[in-house]
């Protein structure tokens, strides 16, 4: 049995893959999935979703789950913050 792993945006680019499949054996949490598939430390602010619901690296993973890793989201409109309001 396997876990489906998905990577998006800058994380996808850095790892050079958008999807992976890892064996469930030895997997307890999303952090284990990351370690198994990525092999490098997770970037700060990495977001996690399990079966399309927000979760965390500590969240338990069950056999057959889809586990996704991605950077902070940037949808909606472009740059709505007034740059003059920044330091």
């Amino acid at each position, binding site marked *: 049995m396997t876990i489906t792993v998905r990577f*998006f945006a800058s994380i996808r680019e850095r790892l050079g893959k958008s999807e992976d499949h890892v064996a469930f054996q030895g997997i307890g949490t999303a952090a284990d999935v990351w370690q198994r598939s990525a092999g490098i430390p997770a970037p700060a602010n990495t977001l996690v979703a399990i079966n399309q619901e927000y979760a965390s690296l500590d969240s338990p993973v069950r056999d057959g789950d889809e586990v996704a890793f*991605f950077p902070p989201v940037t949808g909606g409109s472009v740059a709505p913050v007034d740059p003059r309001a920044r330091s």
Partner: protein
Amino acid sequence: MSVRLAGEAFDPWGEIQSFQSGHPKLAGKFGATAVFVGTMRDFNEGAAVEAMVLEHYESMTRREIEKICAQAVSRWEILDVLVVHRHGPLAPNDPIVLVAVWSAHRDAAFAACRFVIDELKTRAPFWKQEQTGAGQRWVAPE
């Protein structure tokens, strides 16, 4: 309540017209419509932006936007809500997102519209990559 993910350019005003035509039960019931449209600019962070790709996590995106709309419906007395969000390659001046809220009352329409766009920006799994003269760059979150 309607959520549409658009892979091609869309006309937000035409989307609203179609939605209202397709929901004749709204007629006469709403006194207030509040709308937000986010559009791609041709400048950002001091650089000219020539093109953009909006990546998303398709199976999660719709679910997350529907959750946001359901929260708005439960929090304010609104009659209906429409969200259209673009993905894929975009050109400057392309609409990116439309949020339209119908209510009997002005306060609820404004508040719910603002809530949906604010939540969308922090929760919906979209990522913008801009193409500038200096190459591609991922847009940083606010």
